[in-house]
């Protein structure tokens, strides 16, 4: 469905007029003179990025548990228990199967996102203690997990529950936001329709609005834990 555009011509004509020229039909974006973003952690190995990522998690109040692919199911189970288990919500995501996590989750009170159920999904997520999700791209510089959310890997999962457990595969680590945005940029330039919700999350929600005191846990999750999987 095509959306609508209102009032555009007069508005843009005013801009062009103020700029003292005709409307521009095309623009050649220059090669920017300074591009320091590509030099940050340039040439770092995956192991160096892993170290950097772990370091970055502390200041953002995020616990990191490192594990191997084979140990992941156990580690996940333990983490769920440590964070009070209760009700859990997960996305419809093939990676739970690929990492062999479905049997681990079975004994718990787990809701898997199902678009057929409509609003019920949101109600479940809002009441859940834990949401579990996979980071699509992970940023070493800032301890950030990137979620390319869609209707199955829903945005509510790492937003509404009290705790967010994020599985971070070592293979998804890149130096910084630059590489994540470049991936997205290239997809846009290739004419792809990007996900409606691309969320880059670094730790639990927080606020310093009251006398500049940091309060962790405002609207989003109060606790965030990363399970860092050495998959490469």
């Amino acid at each position, binding site marked *: 469905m095509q*959306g*609508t*555009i*209102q*009032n*555009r011509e007069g*508005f*843009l004509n*005013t*801009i*062009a007029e103020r*700029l003292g020229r005709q409307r521009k*039909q095309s*623009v050649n*974006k*220059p090669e*920017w*003179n*300074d591009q*320091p*973003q590509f030099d*940050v*952690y340039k040439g770092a190995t995956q192991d160096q990025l892993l170290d950097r990522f772990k370091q*970055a998690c502390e200041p*953002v109040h995020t616990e990191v548990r490192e594990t191997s692919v084979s140990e992941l199911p156990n580690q996940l189970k333990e983490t769920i228990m440590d964070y009070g288990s209760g009700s859990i919500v997960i996305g419809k995501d093939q990676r739970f199967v690929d990492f062999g996590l479905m049997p681990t989750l079975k004994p718990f009170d787990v809701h898997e*996102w199902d*678009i057929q159920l*409509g609003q019920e999904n*949101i109600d479940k*997520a809002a009441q859940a203690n834990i949401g579990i999700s996979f980071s699509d791209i992970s940023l070493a510089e*800032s301890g*950030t997990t990137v979620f390319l959310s*869609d*209707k199955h890997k*829903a945005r*509510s999962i790492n*937003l509404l529950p009290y705790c967010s457990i994020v599985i971070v595969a070592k293979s998804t680590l890149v130096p910084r936001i630059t590489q994540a*945005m*470049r991936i*997205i940029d290239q997809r*846009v330039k290739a004419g792809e329709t990007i*996900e*409606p*919700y*691309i*969320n*880059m999350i*670094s730790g639990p*929600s*927080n*606020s*310093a*609005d009251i*006398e500049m005191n940091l*309060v962790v*846990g*405002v*609207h*989003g*999750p109060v606790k965030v834990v990363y399970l860092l999987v050495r998959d490469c």
Partner: protein
Amino acid sequence: MPMKIGTEPFFERVDRSIHDDFMRQAMASAQDRLRGRKLEATVGDDSLIDWELWRNAGEEIRRHTLENLDFYLEQLSESYAARGGHVFFAATAEEANRYIQEVVQKKQAKHVVKAKSMVTEEIGLNEALEAVGCDVLESDLAEYILQIDDHDRPSHIVVPSLHKNKEQIRDTFREKRGYTKSEKPEELAAFAREELREAFLKAEVGITGCNFAVADSGTVALVTNEGNANMVTTLPDTQITVMGMERIVPSWEELDVLVTLLCRSAVGQKLTTYVTGLSPDLEADSVDSPKDYHLVIVDGGRSKALGTEFQSALHCIRCAACVNVCPVYRHIGGHAYGSIYQGPIGAVLSPILGGYEEYGELPYASSLCAACTEACPVKIPLHELLIKHRQRYVSGGGHPKASEKLSMKVFGIGASSPSLFQMAKGMAPAMLSPFTKEKRIEKGPGPMKPWTEIRDFPAPSRDNFRKWFDEHKKKAGDDQ
């Protein structure tokens, strides 16, 4: 005038502010902390290679984008609409408000939740929505605090409730919302979380501002720590984004640089907790995304700066780095500016958007120390723009005092005539001798009066350097 705060004259606002001890102390300590954090995350972060290169990159991107603004806005509207979103270009605040009122009325919506947005403050959107019977709730913690305190106004563009202490906030929560706990920030925030969670779940419409729109992908990027903007863009069925027309980047490539500059300059974080790219959703069966997307692009006087010496003011990314280093802001706080945009950028922007009649004093509320220019991550020459405002103000834009105009004329004559200057210099000690005691003047006449209200003025020296220099040279010549 929603951009305007208060009706008192400037100096009355200043006077009130400098007698507000808590506020002053809060401003100073916030500045010291924010400045320290910013330095650590910018010039102090070796992994960035060289912060100056980032500033150069930011400036170049902003300049290019503003020079081609019509093109990028057109591209944005096409890409947003191609994804099913609706775009409305609003030349004025009234047009923007009217459109949003219509959208909300068409939905028969009663409950609106908002994420923090300066542009919606600027256009007075809350009042417009309340006028059509909507219940509007601010969800940013600071904005929420201000809202329930009888719509108090923001005193800082990033931390709007900076002027309030936790005891005041506790009392407001008690009085207005039946809060029963203590003034601990954790308890206050937990209470707001509960209250707002309910509001998010029942709201029909969510409204956000826009940190940057991405022209080629039709995306609105939001940068927050609390996650409230994510709630606002996840739960309600209708999503409305209001953006100042200059808040745009060509593509995700540039978004990277500007988000980096913004997060580090505003709060000294590598990234804020949430950096979210929201694009209209084509998938009808998605459960937790809005069904209806609107993007309202506001001019509101911004175009008056295009093609003028003030164009670079539109490069601003609202990080408040200039506010956090401004020694004037430090002492008078945000409300004294009388505008929702405070500090150096406020003193530059408010007269552009609101005129000299309302904001003519603001460009003078600066000692031109250039701390702002040095701090700006996109290299806006803020102190130079303040001088340019003064030039416009005295040459017809405003109402300078006749006495000031005259004294500057006399200055111009005196400063271009060595003999006149020497004559004045020679006469000064005698002329001022009635006011002089022990080589200083405590109560000066005429133009010296404001100076001597608070400080002594040095008595003009009877000593003559020119004469000394000649004799000194002569003596040196004789010695050889």
